């Protein structure tokens, strides 16, 4: 039976159901149990935003509060995965990856390949990303392209509560390291979620709106803004096909190319800065494999190539919004060779 949950609740339910189903699933991270050190579960906050709330009471010491030492606990999670557990480690902000990148990029991502395909590293790193919360340059980035670039990692960014639950369950059951990106601005998004467990395969983009005039390829929070733009544009007679990539590695190239071939006009919307980004990658893919179908230049709507500004008025300018997306679509729709 489906009922309405927030994306935050959907993540909590996925963790709960997988911990219930499989005793090798453990959680580790800063403050995921939480509290000030007092006795008992009443003091367990379940992480800074309450994503893991209630799990300590059910699963006790399968939740490990760690020191503020990402290099140590991400490394421990990778090691635990290599030796038989299924750890879900919470890297509170994806901006903090710098201090534990070796454990992810040069260890977890490599084991399967360096040990003749005989080693598996079923670790999930859950991590917050994204701007818009006035959290300044070190807590607001969208660094998914850095991880997408690394062979051996899988990169997931859910947009709806339904997808969040199904993709996180898939991530936990997956035998490779998965980086699971949670946008701070999406936790309160509501949607229908089945009570039962289910998993969504990686590499299956979601066409969230059909249209024949212009394709908008998007991911994360930007999918909502792309849909808002598409709604406005429909009133002007421009029908947009909006694609949510869901995962950037593996990437569902077929759905992107199918959409490009259907509309011949493409806008790629990405919250991250533009150099060596998911947006440029999608653009290259389409230019290489669907060039003949294109009737207008591929247009990117991204953040500028700067750190995320702290001043609210600048941060709002920094993030692509529905108005900028709609303006780009109008240019692409009106382009004549």
């Amino acid at each position, binding site marked *: 039976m489906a009922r309405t949950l927030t994306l935050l609740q959907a993540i909590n339910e996925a963790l709960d159901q997988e911990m219930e189903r499989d005793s090798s699933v453990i959680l580790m991270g800063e403050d995921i149990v939480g509290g000030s050190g007092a006795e008992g579960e009443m003091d367990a906050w379940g992480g800074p935003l309450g994503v893991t709330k209630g799990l300590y009471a059910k699963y006790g010491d399968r939740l490990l509060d760690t020191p503020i030492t990402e290099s140590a606990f991400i490394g421990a999670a990778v090691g635990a995965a290599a030796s038989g557990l299924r750890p879900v480690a919470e890297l509170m902000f994806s901006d903090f990856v710098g201090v534990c990148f070796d454990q992810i990029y040069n260890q977890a991502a490599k084991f399967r390949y360096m040990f003749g395909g005989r080693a598996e590293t079923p670790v999930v790193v859950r991590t917050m990303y994204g701007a818009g919360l006035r959290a300044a340059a070190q807590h607001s980035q969208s660094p998914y392209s850095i991880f997408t670039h690394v062979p051996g990692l899988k990169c997931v960014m859910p947009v709806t509560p339904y997808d969040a639950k*199904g993709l996180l369950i898939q991530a936990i059951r997956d035998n490779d390291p998965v980086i699971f990106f949670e946008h701070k601005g999406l936790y309160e998004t509501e949607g229908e979620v089945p009570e039962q467990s*289910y998993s969504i395969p990686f590499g299956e983009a979601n*066409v969230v709106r*059909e249209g024949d005039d212009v394709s908008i390829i998007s991911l994360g929070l930007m999918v909502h803004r792309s849909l808002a733009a598409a709604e406005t544009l429909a009133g002007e007679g421009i029908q947009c096909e909006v694609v949510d990539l869901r995962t950037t590695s593996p990437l569902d190239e*077929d759905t992107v190319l199918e959409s490009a071939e259907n509309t011949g006009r493409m806008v790629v919307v990405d919250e991250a800065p533009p150099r060596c980004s998911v947006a440029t990658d999608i653009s290259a893919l389409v230019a290489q494999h669907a060039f003949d179908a294109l009737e207008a230049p591929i247009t990117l709507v991204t953040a500028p190539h700067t750190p995320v500004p702290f001043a609210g008025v600048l941060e709002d300018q920094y993030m692509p919004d529905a108005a900028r997306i709609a303006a780009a679509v109008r240019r692409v729709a009106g382009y004549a060779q």
Partner: protein
Amino acid sequence: MSASDLRALVMPKWGLTMTEAVVVKWLVDEGADVELGAELVDVETEKILSAVESPASGALRWRAAEGSTIPVGGLLGVIADADVPDDAIVGFAATFEAEFTPETEAVAGDEPSPQRVEVDGRSLRYLKLGEGGEPVVLVHGFGGDLNNWLFNHEALSAQRAVYALDLPGHGESSTNVGDGTVATLAQAVADFMDALDLPPAHLVGHSLGGAIAAELAGTAPDRVRSLSLIASVGLGGELLAGFLDGFVTARRRRQIKPVLEALFADPALVTRRLVNDVLQYKRLDGVEDALGAIARNLVTDGQQTVSIRECLATYPGPTLVIWGAADQIVPASHAAGLPEGTHVEVIEAVGHMPMMEASLRVNQVLGAHVQELPIP
């Protein structure tokens, strides 16, 4: 049809959640003569594209614009004789529009919604529409659910209670299918009828559901007032190679879409929403195993292993068999050689889902079948 006899062609309601649909394409010109039951216009809801059939014979005198969104019950067209003056047609349409009140959200909330019943350790979901009379029980096919009857359920329920259930392993019912045999599933339907304290019922089964209904008619004929089998399995050997396996193992849109398209004579009926609904169901834990167990009991080496012919031979009640002539899954030739007295209805240019692709015709035939029986 007399000169004063104008008939409104209105937007039908297909399923509980439908509130409106878009007029995609008219299939007949304005002014053209149409027969009762002829397909007049393709409309698309968020779930499905389907044709609306003519409620009367006459000329199609007025049509809603293509691309327009019409609420359920709203005016799609006007059917009248060719000699009715244009003014009368325009007046009729204007009056209809003026008096029409679209169904509000509040009213939609009052409608019957699916319920659950615990049967033999399983939770079965079902939807009941209508009251009284001899009940009808609708049993969907392999991989289906109670929504397969969205074009039929309400139409059949005008004078009687009509129950559509999700079989074990399907829809939102429990995924436990036991050994996955037709006998086990038939027992689940019998238990369902017991749990709801149903008197002998008119069983309508589609595909796998046909075999289940026939099994019940063979083993407990006193529970079955009449039998209606739509594109049933169990009447011959052939079953489209790879269909069951393809349905069971597909996890992605590109894998499931061609499988679903084989169900219909017109593959355009398989919308993205339909594909997504099937994928959402198939992603649930336990569904693939449940479907696999059922499939293993249906087919071996590409041939059906279930036969319901013996059940039909011994069942004394009235039996109706409906088939789409263009069925790619189970060929309509399987309707041959049935016991004497069986009413066989083969519908041209329709695939494995006649209750969706030719709903008006199927509703007429089913309605007559359950109606014309003498009161016992």
